């Protein structure tokens, strides 16, 4: 494989981009490790669906986005949000159920949004984000400013009727929508090879008359490149594009792990060896883009950010009980 980038001793613009991606992936990892730990500590009232193991996807896809682009996320949303630029403090505060959280404590982990930066929200209903993203894509088209929408969803969501309806609608209207399918092999404990007839998501997407691709979702460079090609097509008005990112979820379906994880142990271990972060780190080192001390600095930075987020969350006030009455309707 080619070197990631040419360099002449100092960090080039491109290098900075790569390092940023690395930082983003690490931030996602540490955020969800920490959030999971806080769940187990009892500091989080609800549950968290960790994105651990899938960091390359959100990071690689969102590295192609520009201001004004919109994303729609799902129940496993932390990674998407961080990659799109959400504030980890307000995210953590929301996970903690605090008033300073993105949703004032009303949403929790499964419902974080930041409309100000084009994050139309996580969603607790499998498949339900797809029609909403279709609307965001229609808005982008009506705006006529070359902006696009991206929807993240899992293999499980491909089993819901809303997936098909949205694929069809986006296709006939040639909407600027990237279907970013995170195939982490399972919906809870059910393998996609069992639940998806034929087991071929790309073939299914092709039937909706849109271009498709399938890439290694644990290789952030491959993700970025596939997404770049797709997004160029989408942004140019070519209509929707479907990309399958093959990946794996390391944790149980959610934390606390109330649902027993029945996936084969060996499979989990094998995937952990394909860690997207370790892999990217090795690449960056090999190509001489970062040094070990630089990596350590990034690690420290990221840990600092996460610590800060937790402190912020912990020290933030809880909402008042009567706050429950606000925000049912907009003025």
């Amino acid at each position, binding site marked *: 494989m080619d070197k990631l980038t040419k360099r002449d001793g100092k960090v080039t613009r491109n290098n900075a981009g790569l390092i940023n991606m690395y930082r983003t992936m690490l931030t996602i990892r540490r955020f969800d490790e920490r959030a999971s730990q806080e769940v187990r500590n009892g500091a989080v009232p609800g549950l968290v669906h960790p994105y651990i193991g899938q960091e390359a996807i959100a990071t690689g896809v969102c590295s192609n986005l520009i201001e004004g682009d919109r994303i729609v996320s799902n129940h496993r949303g932390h990674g998407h949000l961080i990659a799109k630029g959400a504030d980890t403090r307000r995210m953590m505060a929301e996970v903690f159920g605090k008033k300073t959280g993105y949703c004032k404590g009303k949403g929790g982990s499964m419902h974080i949004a930041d409309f100000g930066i084009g994050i139309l929200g996580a969603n607790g209903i499998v498949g*339900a984000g797809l029609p909403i993203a279709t609307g965001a*894509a229609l808005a982008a088209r009506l705006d006529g400013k070359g902006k696009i929408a991206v929807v993240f969803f899992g293999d499980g969501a491909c089993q819901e009727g809303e997936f098909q309806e949205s694929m069809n609608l986006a296709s006939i209207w040639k909407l600027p929508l990237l279907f970013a399918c995170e195939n982490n092999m399972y919906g809870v404990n059910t393998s996609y090879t069992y639940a998806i007839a034929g087991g071929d998501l790309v073939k299914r997407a092709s039937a909706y008359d849109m271009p498709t691709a399938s890439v290694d979702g644990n290789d952030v460079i491959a993700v970025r490149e596939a997404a770049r090609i797709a997004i160029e097509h989408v942004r140019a008005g070519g209509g929707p594009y479907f990309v399958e990112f093959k990946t794996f979820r390391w944790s149980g379906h959610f934390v606390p792990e109330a649902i027993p994880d029945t996936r084969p142990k060996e499979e989990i271990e094998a995937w952990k060896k394909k860690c997207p972060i370790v892999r990217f780190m090795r690449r960056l080192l090999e190509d001489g883009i970062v040094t070990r001390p630089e990596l350590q600095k990034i690690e420290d930075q990221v840990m600092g950010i996460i610590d800060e987020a937790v402190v912020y969350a912990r020290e933030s006030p809880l909402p008042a009980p009567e706050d429950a009455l606000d925000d049912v309707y907009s*003025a």
Partner: protein
Amino acid sequence: MKKIAYARAAAEAVQEEFRRDNKLVYLATDLQPDLRQEFGEERVRVTPISESAFVGTAIGLAGSGYRAIADLRMATFGFVAMDQMVNQAAKITYMFGGQARFPMLIRMSFGAGMHWAAQHSISPYSMYMNVPGLKIILPTTAYDVKGLLKSALRDNNPVISFENTLLGQVAGDVPEEDYTVPFGRADVKRVGTDVTVVALSRMLHEALAASVALEARGISAEVVDPRTLVPLDRESIRRSVKKTGRLVVVDEACRTCSAAAEVISLVVEDEETYARLKSAPQRVCGLDVPIPYSPPMEQYAIPDRGKILEAVLSLFPRVVK
């Protein structure tokens, strides 16, 4: 003033708001030829038969600075899009802590009496009333439908408009100039002193007819049209009952957990109003059966002026029937 049909008044509301607001988009499986001709196919869109997808599309548009009308045509088709309405549209403002607005309008025609059988005759508004986050309008006249739809199209929330199919051709007076009907204001369509009849949608017209027959028997009925179900004008309803001391609620929908049950409850749980009641409040509702096809059964299953008359008279044992 001009006299136009309910359906025409509704169409005018949409057309005028389309002129006012260039962010307005129409989504329906049916072509809307007039609207399309004036506003083009980008804004007036024919959807596939994919209600979930296009209601969700309306939500996504709303969250992205537009305002969509998702016209489901018949209320029954809403059930395939129920998740988008109940889990998404209704909750999204709240779940996200109020950081975004979701202005959108879902239109559904509904009701029995067309001999379309069970699947096409349901009146499901009470199901949606149980879901906070939706506003619900139930216009009964040409004037109200135009004014309420206009308010809906200027509101910043998901609104569902339930439009009774049989009202479509009923004509009524509508002002020439722009006007709106505010949400949450019941309309006393007939002033009376002896009994309050709260009547929903088409049943308003049946109740007004019954009140004429009642008048002949010396009973003065006050007929109240809530006009919007969410928000519901509790105060006006209670005020009327405090005055008359008697309550009959007329609702075409199935009786159990109906909007009528809500009206009865909000009246009796209010101590002051309760104290003024002179007799047990009554519901005149659709029977708890799916709507049957054949007219004799269908008619039997839904309320009409005769049943309203009977129910009111039962509150006045000394009046000759």
